[in-house]
């Protein structure tokens, strides 16, 4: 009844190509952003910030990055954790070695370092694909783990291997409170997320999708696989790298290489699959889901177990978590390969006809 596009005429090419062509969509997006920026800071507690909001926002950006590569360009990557690590350590080194740079500038610049490394590890994708490429990106992951731990220059010769982020500040103001951190992360994620949305709508994104759907056909109609694949690796690594730098500077504060292990890669992959391959919105939904599910299970399982007289420990909860993730991956791949994002668009379709589905 309320979700109608009837009567909304597009009078210019600009309107026709708008990112949200339906007025109600624009309204929902703007309202959502207003809530996220203006209302949430007054409601959220410190716990909510640390446990839910900041990780969700940062991992959303990382999931968007992986989705660019996996969902849009069809190149499977198991090395996204390492690319987050590249971003984090690049930002750390920029901050240490160029002390006059603002930490936030370091975060953004680190994306370019990650993009360069991403292109280097993307080169094998020109010759191989599928499992072989997955193995190659796994090599990137393990090499990254090793480099962060063993190459002393990367950690600035810290004896313990653990490094600290500089305090976040701008124009002399201290921005390390949870609210400020959340707002910074949200701003960066929304700006880069919208940029990604526009890239995948444009001619570069169409090239990626052509390569994903059938590489040979794409080549015949004039898509250069070299350019398309490497640009996907570059954009994806840039986004993942910035997310990694934010994860380190805004969320962790001080971290060890284990923060960017292969578990992180799998976590991001789950977000992309559950959220929806080839959807920016899906990346956000997947990130929200994957961050919230363990918190929910931790709260809900022990009382449930107590009901049937089974004492559930934290370890058991984490095993349940892994079982549920595994089952969900298979479920979504079998039933709904386009993930939560597809469920959302189905709901929108239904809403357009409601309440009179002819």
């Amino acid at each position, binding site marked *: 009844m309320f979700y109608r596009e009837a009567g909304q005429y597009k009078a210019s090419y600009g309107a026709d190509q708008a990112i949200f062509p339906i007025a109600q969509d624009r309204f929902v997006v703007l309202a959502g952003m207003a809530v996220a920026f203006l209302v949430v800071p007054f409601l959220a507690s410190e716990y909510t910030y640390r446990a839910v909001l900041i990780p969700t926002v940062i991992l959303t950006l990382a999931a968007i990055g992986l989705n660019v590569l996996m969902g849009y360009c*069809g190149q*499977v990557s198991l090395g996204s954790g390492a690319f987050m690590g590249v971003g984090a350590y690049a930002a750390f080194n920029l901050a240490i070695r160029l002390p006059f740079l603002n930490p936030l500038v370091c975060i953004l610049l680190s994306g370019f370092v990650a993009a360069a490394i991403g292109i280097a590890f993307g080169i*094998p*994708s*020109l*010759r*191989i*694909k*599928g*499992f*072989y490429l*997955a*193995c*190659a990106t*796994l*090599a990137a992951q*393990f*090499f990254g*783990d*090793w480099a962060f*731990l*063993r*190459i*002393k220059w990367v950690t600035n010769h810290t004896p313990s291997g653990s490094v600290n982020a500089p305090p976040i500040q701008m124009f002399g103001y201290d921005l390390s409170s949870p609210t400020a951190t959340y707002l910074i992360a949200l701003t960066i994620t929304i700006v880069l997320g919208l940029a990604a949305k526009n890239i995948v709508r444009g001619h570069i994104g169409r090239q990626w999708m052509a390569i994903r759907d059938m*590489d040979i056909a794409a080549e015949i109609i004039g898509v250069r*696989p070299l350019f398309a694949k490497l640009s996907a690796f570059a954009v994806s690594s840039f986004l993942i790298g910035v997310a990694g730098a934010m994860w380190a500077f805004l969320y962790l504060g001080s971290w060890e290489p284990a923060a960017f292990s*292969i578990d992180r890669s*799998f976590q991001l*992959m789950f977000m992309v*699959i559950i959220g929806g391959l080839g959807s920016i919105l899906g990346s956000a939904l997947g990130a929200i889901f994957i961050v919230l599910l363990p918190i929910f299970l931790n709260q809900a399982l022990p009382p449930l177990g107590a009901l049937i007289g089974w004492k559930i420990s934290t*370890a*058991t909860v984490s*095993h*349940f*978590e*892994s*079982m*549920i*993730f*595994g*089952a*969900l*991956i*298979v479920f979504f*791949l*079998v039933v709904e*390969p386009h993930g939560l994002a597809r469920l959302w668009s189905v709901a929108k379709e239904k809403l357009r006809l409601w309440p009179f589905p002819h």
Partner: protein
Amino acid sequence: MGFFIEVLIGGLLAGVLYSLVALGFVLIFKASGVFNFAQGAMVLAAALALVRALEVMQVQWHWPFGLALPAAFAFAAAVMALIAWAAERLVLRKLVNQEGIILFMATIGVTFFIEGLAQTVFGADVYPLNIGLPKEPIFLLESLFEGGVLVNELDIWAAVIAGLLVAGLAVFFQRTRIGRALRAVADDHAAAQSVGIALNQIWFIVWLVAGLVALAAGAVWGSKLGVQFSLTLLALKALPVLILGGFTSVPGAIVGGLIIGAGEKLAEVFLGPSMGGGIEIWFAYVVALLFLLVRPQGLFGERIIERV
């Protein structure tokens, strides 16, 4: 020189164990074209089932070791059969005709599910496993080198078991009815179906065989290192072995495992110190990647390969 040989032999014997895991991958890939990431999780599940059943039978039921061991193996085999059935029924059958990479991601889901389930049911601690294999260190070639070459007897048994397994599988594939059907399915699904081979049944059998190989690998690794979660990491080590040996070749899995095992130990001992140590974790992958550029089908793989 004695030290070099000692490292080499140690590496080769570790490689035998990689081969055991890689073997499971190859079997499933050959028969169903599925790249089964869950092989490592199956090793963990099999080893956990074995060690826990053995413990219950010996400690609680007071069965003698000679009776408990076969019974525990039978129990673990039954668990693997259950996993094989569930994997075929609930995952593979639903994803028939999907792209390989979708199936690959589905097996990652299966991996997490099996890991979670096995640890919920059987416990998540480190369990020492004793299946009666001797563990004494022995010295070889003492006449040739001073002090001889130190070898763990368990590793030699592992090599023997791997050899027997490969011989057994070769006979199974070449001489039996089911083996022929498996090879037919590997060659061409549609053609195999048209001559009356039931695909679903074949897939179950091949997952079962891979499960039993996982059980053997789990038993050997478990008695060497104790049954623990890190066994699943083996699956990741088996990937470079596969690239090196070829995805479809049983002898390739063995030779690839030996090369990777020996190569990474030698690299760790002789190159590692100059690079800060710990290069074991990525050396195998880098070797595999370089190899991929030269010979993408692996040492013994079939030439047909998906490339861009």
